[in-house]
């Protein structure tokens, strides 16, 4: 099957999944035992009339299926409700915080993927030698250490004991944010030639991005290592050697291309971990992203923000999964032949 047809098929399948996700978030927002309207109206001392008005506004007395219809309708029009903790539309808040999370996540991936794959290969090729043991140790600690604790330890080490890196935030207090083009500080400051902002944002990104990417690095390392170990024993690798190819070509061309397939398969999972991890990382580093926003919302009982955040994260995940699937079919010609 042609690649283009495969992509179209996957895009169509996207719709029921997104619908299902909205159904799920709708369900979650309706198991909240607290009376949402009362909370919005001001809590215990709320005016009953205000509560009634809010209830009507939010259609809380309508039958469930009608409420779901309103919900879906709102979502399609980009209305995620009102943020109680920030007193503005949820959508607006998320728009503001999105670039910070994006920049952090992208940098974490840029760290985790190349380093993970490379060390995975080396680990497999030098199986059971000392470098294998070290990389396996890194990998396993990566998935065993709680991100928030790692963040705190790194803060103690590099921002307190040996203060070479900033403690938190995206920029130093004395530095102005670069002119807003994308919201990604590194990109924006490069493009506008603002080198003070560039330097400051890079410095501030180091600890959070490392913290966030460390666990993913571990996972990628392990998957790459184990699939390389398996593939290196296959028949077609034997053929490649029999052709007289240099061992380097055998590993990095013939074996790796096949080994990347399971790695790509797992990247959906890794990305989920990154998004979840971002929530914790942003909290520790006081990073002005969606994660920190969500945690604040949780602590303030701002349910519409929490739900809005969840929906957005789900949409991002679904999109990422789609990209992963397409990438997968590019890498592995066998699966293009119908599902």
């Amino acid at each position, binding site marked *: 099957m042609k690649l283009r047809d495969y992509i179209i098929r996957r895009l169509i399948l996207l719709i029921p999944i997104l619908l299902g996700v909205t159904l799920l978030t709708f369900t979650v927002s309706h198991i909240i035992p*607290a009376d949402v309207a009362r909370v919005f109206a001001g809590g215990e001392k709320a005016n009953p009339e205000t509560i009634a008005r809010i209830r009507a506004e939010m259609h809380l007395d309508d039958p469930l299926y009608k409420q779901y219809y309103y919900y879906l309708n709102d979502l399609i029009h980009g209305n995620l409700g009102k943020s109680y903790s920030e007193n503005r539309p949820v959508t607006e808040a998320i728009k503001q915080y999105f670039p910070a999370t994006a920049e952090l996540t992208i940098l974490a991936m840029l760290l985790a993927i190349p380093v993970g794959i490379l060390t995975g290969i080396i680990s497999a090729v030098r199986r059971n030698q000392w470098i294998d043991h070290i990389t396996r140790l890194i990998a396993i600690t990566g*998935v065993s250490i709680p991100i928030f604790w790692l963040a705190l330890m790194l803060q103690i080490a590099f921002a307190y004991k040996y203060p070479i890196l900033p403690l938190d935030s995206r920029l130093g207090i004395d530095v102005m944010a670069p002119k807003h083009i994308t919201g990604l500080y590194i990109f924006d400051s490069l493009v506008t030639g603002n080198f003070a902002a560039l330097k400051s944002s890079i410095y501030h990104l180091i600890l959070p991005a490392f913290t966030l990417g460390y666990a993913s690095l571990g996972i990628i390392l392990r998957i790459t290592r184990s699939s390389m170990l398996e593939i290196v024993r296959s028949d077609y690798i034997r053929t490649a050697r029999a052709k007289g190819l240099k061992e380097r070509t055998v590993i990095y061309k013939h074996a790796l291309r096949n080994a990347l397939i399971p790695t790509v398969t797992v990247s959906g999972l890794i990305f989920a971990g990154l998004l979840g991890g971002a929530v914790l990382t942003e909290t520790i580093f006081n990073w002005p992203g969606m994660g920190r926003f969500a945690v604040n919302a949780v602590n303030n009982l701002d349910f519409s923000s929490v739900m809005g955040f969840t929906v957005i994260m789900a949409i991002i995940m679904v999109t990422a999964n789609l990209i992963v699937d397409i990438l997968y079919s590019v890498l592995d010609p066998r699966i293009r032949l119908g599902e």
Partner: protein
Amino acid sequence: MGFIDEWKKRNESRIKETKFTLSLFRHSLLSMIGLGLIIFIVLIALFAPYLAKEHPTYVRLLNPEGKYVTEERWDIHFGDKLLPPSREHYFGTDDYGHDIFSMIVYGARLSIKIGLLVVISATIIGVILGAIAGYFGGYLDELIMRITDIFLSIPGLILAMAFAAALGRSIEHVMYALIIVWWPTYTRLIRGQILKTREETYVEAARSLGTPDSKIIFKHILPNTFAPVFVQMTMDLGNVVLNAAGLSFIGLGANPGTAEWGLMISMGRVYIFQAWWYVFFPGLAIVLFVLGFNLLGDGLRDVLDPKLRR
């Protein structure tokens, strides 16, 4: 004696394989370390009352929503506030004067409880739904798979956060939330394994010999399904606790005053530069706990995977 010798002879190759498995396991340093860590933690949890210096009391209260809840209470000694590690207090004290070592030791009990409950529940759901999907196929299979797809489309921690936030702050709700996050993984795993073994030639061979379906399921399919599920369960025991700690850290799990490792880190964060031990030791406990299960699971996987054995 004759009976035992006969049994030994008949099962000679099975015994040999088991011995080989055990020896592979024993020779895997990492698996042994993992096993050691876990035994160590379980022992600590078991003997908590004897090891700890301070002990919590459990109080039954009526909460604002009209339900009875059990809360953990520790005695307060403000005089001993924030003391560094010493012979008196191995891990120091927190801002209420509690002995951190005691809290961590009791926290082990809580973590083990959380891990076991969530993983076993998720596995049970997974076995039921996965078996239905895998064995019967058709519409039921499609439906179950689409539902798991939907659940898996939301990042785990975030979904748990949403559920836990909606349900209200408590450890029980965190456990429910984590079960909701975890069941799709087991459903898919078990379904996948059943599908795989169903197609194997030895199942076809058994069928052609006239073996009844039930015997096929129990003798051929299930034993081969078991190994990867077991590995997954082992590793998830650690992962669940990791996530539970994360949720407690955010403020969604244990109520303040409970000795839960994640919560302790969150409380200690304020004092991070003055009293590093408050944050350090609970985190270390989490690391050892999760590391133990990950190492064990990793080792088990290497040992049980027929392809990597030789």
